[in-house]
C-alpha cells in the first residue's frame, strides 16, 4: 500500500466529516414505525453491493444498489440516505480493504444521496404512500434527483481518483460519465418502479422483481470464469511453445505491447482483445516444425525457410479461422510478416490490416530487445529506423510511447 498524499488525506477526512454531518442532519426525519422498512432496504442494498455484476467488454459494472437506494429515498423520506451510507460502509467483498476506504465509500454515498434528497424534496417531490401513488407528479422530481445523484457521486469519486493518481479531474470525471449516464436512464424509471411495487405489493413483490437480477449475477460470473479459462488455456499453450522456441515469455510481452498500442490507437476494447489474441497465437501454425528447423528459422532464415514460415503463418490463420470469436484475428496472423511499404511482399492481400501492422512492430521490437540482451532503448532505436519501411510509422510512434510508459 503506497502512502497517501497529504491532499488526498485531507480530502478523505473532509468527505467523511461531511457524510457524518449529512447523517446527523437527517436524524429528525427518522420514524420508528418505519424501522423494519429501513432494515429491509438496508439489507437489499447491501446484498446488491455484494452481488454487483461486472460486465464483460464494457469495463463497467451493473448493480441494482443505486435503484434500491433511490427508491428508498422516494419511499421513506430524507432519512433513507442512511441506507446507502451504512450499506456502503460495510465491506462488500474479501479481503477487507483499509478502514478509510470503507468509511469514505459510505460517506460519499451519504453525501451524494443527501444532495439527491435535497433536490427531490425541494422541487416538490413527495413521499410515496399507498393513498397517493401519483406517478405523473413524481417523474420530474425523481429525474432531477437522479441527475443530482449522478453529478454529486461522479464528482466525489472522480476527485478522489484524480488526487490519488495525480491526473486531471475532468478526465476522470468524463471517463466514466458515458456509462453512468446511460445507466441513469434506466435507474430513474426503475427506481420509481421499485417504489411502486413496494407500495403496492410489499416485500414479496420486491423479492420477485429482484430475483432475476441476482440470478443473472451468478450466470455472468460463470460466463466470466469460462472466458478467463479460454484466455488462460491459450496463454498456457503458447507460453509452452515460446519455451520450446527458446524464448520464454516472448508472446506475453508482445501481447502486452500489442494490446497497449491498440488501445492507444483508439481501437475498440473488443478489437484490442482480438489483436492481443492474434499476438499470442501468431505462431500456432509452427507446432509441426521439427526443432532443428525451428531454431534455424528463428536464428538465420534462408529463402527456403521463409517458405516454411509462410506455410506456418497460413496454417495458423486457418486454425484461428475455426474459432468463433477469433475469426477476425486470422488476417493479422497471416499478414504480420508483410512489410508496410509494400516492398518484399509475399501475399498479394492489400491493405495490411492495422492488427497485423501492430503485431509486426511489437514482434520486431521484442526480437531486437532479446538480441540486445534487454536493452530497450537500443531496440526502440532499431524499430524507429524501420519506421516507414517495414513498419507503419503511426504504429511505431505509438509503440515508442507505450514502451516509455511501461518503463516507468
Amino acid at each position, binding site marked *: 500500500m503506497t502512502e497517501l498524499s497529504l491532499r488526498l488525506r485531507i480530502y478523505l477526512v473532509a468527505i467523511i466529516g461531511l457524510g457524518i454531518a449529512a447523517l446527523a442532519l437527517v436524524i429528525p426525519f427518522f420514524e420508528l414505525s418505519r424501522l423494519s422498512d429501513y432494515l429491509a432496504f438496508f439489507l437489499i442494498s447491501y446484498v446488491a453491493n455484494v452481488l454487483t*455484476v461486472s460486465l*464483460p467488454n464494457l469495463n463497467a459494472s*451493473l448493480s441494482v444498489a443505486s435503484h434500491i437506494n433511490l427508491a428508498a429515498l422516494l419511499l421513506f423520506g430524507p432519512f433513507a440516505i442512511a441506507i446507502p451510507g451504512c450499506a456502503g460502509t460495510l465491506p462488500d467483498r474479501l479481503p477487507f480493504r483499509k478502514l478509510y476506504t470503507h468509511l469514505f465509500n459510505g460517506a460519499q454515498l451519504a453525501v451524494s444521496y443527501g444532495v439527491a434528497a435535497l433536490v427531490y424534496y425541494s422541487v416538490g417531490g413527495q413521499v410515496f404512500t399507498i393513498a397517493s401513488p401519483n*406517478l405523473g407528479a413524481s417523474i420530474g422530481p425523481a429525474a432531477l434527483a437522479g441527475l443530482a445523484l449522478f453529478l454529486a457521486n461522479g464528482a466525489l469519486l472522480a476527485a478522489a481518483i484524480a488526487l490519488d493518481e495525480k491526473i486531471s479531474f475532468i478526465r476522470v470525471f468524463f471517463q466514466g460519465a458515458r456509462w453512468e449516464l446511460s445507466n441513469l436512464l*434506466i435507474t430513474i*424509471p*426503475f427506481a420509481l*418502479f421499485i417504489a*411502486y*411495487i413496494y407500495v*403496492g*405489493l*410489499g416485500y*414479496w*413483490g420486491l423479492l*420477485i*422483481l*429482484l*430475483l*432475476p*437480477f441476482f*440470478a*443473472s449475477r451468478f*450466470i*455472468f460470473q*460463470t*460466463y466470466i*470464469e*469460462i*472466458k*478467463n*479459462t*479460454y484466455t*488462460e*488455456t*491459450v*496463454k*498456457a*499453450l503458447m507460453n*509452452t*511453445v515460446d*519455451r*520450446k522456441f527458446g524464448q520464454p515469455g516472448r508472446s506475453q510481452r508482445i501481447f502486452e505491447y500489442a494490446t497497449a498500442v491498440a488501445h492507444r490507437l483508439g481501437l475498440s476494447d473488443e478489437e484490442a482483445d482480438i489483436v492481443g489474441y492474434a499476438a499470442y497465437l501468431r505462431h*500456432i*501454425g509452427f*507446432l*509441426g*516444425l*521439427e*526443432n*532443428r528447423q525451428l531454431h534455424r528459422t528463428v536464428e538465420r532464415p534462408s529463402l527456403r525457410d521463409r517458405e516454411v514460415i509462410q506455410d506456418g503463418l497460413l*496454417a*495458423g490463420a486457418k*486454425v*484461428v479461422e*475455426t*474459432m*468463433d*470469436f*477469433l475469426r477476425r484475428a486470422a488476417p493479422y496472423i497471416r499478414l504480420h510478416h508483410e512489410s508496410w511499404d509494400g516492398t518484399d511482399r509475399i501475399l498479394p492481400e492489400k491493405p495490411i490490416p492495422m492488427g497485423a501492422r501492430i503485431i509486426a512492430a511489437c514482434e520486431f521490437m521484442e526480437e531486437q530487445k532479446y538480441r540486445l540482451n534487454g536493452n530497450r532503448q537500443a531496440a526502440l532505436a532499431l524499430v524507429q529506423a524501420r519506421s516507414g519501411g517495414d513498419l507503419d510509422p503511426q504504429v511505431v510512434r505509438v509503440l515508442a510511447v507505450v514502451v516509455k510508459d511501461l518503463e516507468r
Partner: protein
Amino acid sequence: MKPPTLERLSVWFLIGLILLFLYLLIQCILKGLFTLDLFLVAMAALLLRFFDVSFLGHLISPCGGVILAAFFIFGPLPGLLAMVFSLFGLFLFRKTLKFSPPDLTDALVQTLGASGAAVLVHQYVIGPALGPVDLSTYSLTLFLSLAGTIAVYYLTAALLTILIRASSGGDLKRLVGTLAHPLYLAVFCVLGLSTILLVPVYFQLGVAGLLLGLLPLCVFFYAVRLYLRMRDVYRQALRALVGSIEAMDPYTHGHSDRVAGLCIEIGRRLGFGENRLRLLEYASYLHDMGKVTIDPAILHKKGSLTELEWTVIRSHPSEGAEILKPVGFLHKILPWIAHHHEKADGTGYPEALPLERTPLEARIISAADAFDAMVSDRPYRAALSIKETVREMQRNQNTQFDARIVGIISQLVESPDFFRRWRERLPL
C-alpha cells in the same frame, strides 16, 4: 423420406399462423378485446423472442411469461393472440438466433401446445375450482391459480420438447435428465415467479409497469445466452488448438475429437452429471496437450526409438498437466490428464499407479485413447477392425484397462451404425 427443409417447413407454418392470427384478431376486435395495451403486450411477446436460448436440447424462451400474463390479464383469446405474435417473432429472429429446423419445430409446437394446455386447464380446472380471483392484489388464491397454470404451461412445453426430440433421434434419458439441471430449474423459477408478479403490476401500474417488469427478465436471459455461447466458443477453441497440436503428427488427425466423443458416451453410461461430463470432455480434448513439448522429429521418426526418445514421449502426460496448471478452472482435470497412460496392473507411466488409485476419468480417457489408436492406421501397422479391437481390449482388461469401461465400450459398439455415428460425433 427426406427430412423437410427449414424453408419448406417455415412456409407451411407461416401460412397456418397467418390464418390463426387473422381469426384471433377478428374475434378479439369483434368482442372489443383488442386494445392498445393488448397490442403492446403482444409486441413485447414478439420482441422477447430475441432472448430465446437453446440449452441441452431444450429451447427456452422468456415469451411464455408474457403470453401467460396476457392470458391472465386480457383473457384466453387475447392470450392466444399474444402467442401468435411471439411465433411471428420466432420467424423474425430465427436467422439471428441461428435456429436449426428442429429448434424451430420445437419452438412452434411447444408454444402452441403449452398455450393451449394452459388455457384449457385454467378455464376448466383451476379457474372454476378457485372461484373468482382478484387479479389486482396479491393473495394466496391468486398465487395458487397463477402458479398452477404456469406450471401446466411449462410442463406441457417440456413434455412436447422431449417427445419431439426423442422421436427425431434424441436421447430420451438425457432430455428428461436436463429437467433437473440447476440452470434449467433456475430459469423456470425466475420465469414463473416473474410472470406471477406481472399480473398485479399491470392492474396497479398499467402496461408501462408490465413492460418495465420484463426488463430484469431480459437481463437474465441475456446473461444465460452469453454464458451458453461462451461454453460453445471455448469448446470450439479447444478443438482448434488441439487440432494444431495434432497437425504435428499426421496419424493423429482428429484423434482428440473422437476420443472426446467416446469419453462422453462412456461417462454418460456411468451416470456422470452434466458438469462432470463437461470437464471430462475438456480433459479428453486436452489429454495429449503435453505433446507440444516433444520435438516432432521424434513423433515423425520411422523405425524404433532410443531409450532417451521413449523417455521424452513418456513425459507427455505429466507435461500436459504441467502446461495447464496456470488455468485455474481446469485444476480438477490435471490428474486425469497426468494419468491417462497408467495401466490397471500398475505398469504404466508416469507413476505406475494401480487401477484403484488411478482417477476414473483417467481410466476412461486411457481406454478411449487406446480404442481410437487401435482402429486407426499407424506407421507400423494397419488399423484393426472394431471387433478385433474390442477383443484385444477384453484380453487386456485388468492388466491394462478397467474391465467396467471395456464392458461399456463393448456395449457401445453394438449400437447400429456405431462407427459412422462415432466418427461424425452423433449420439450413440
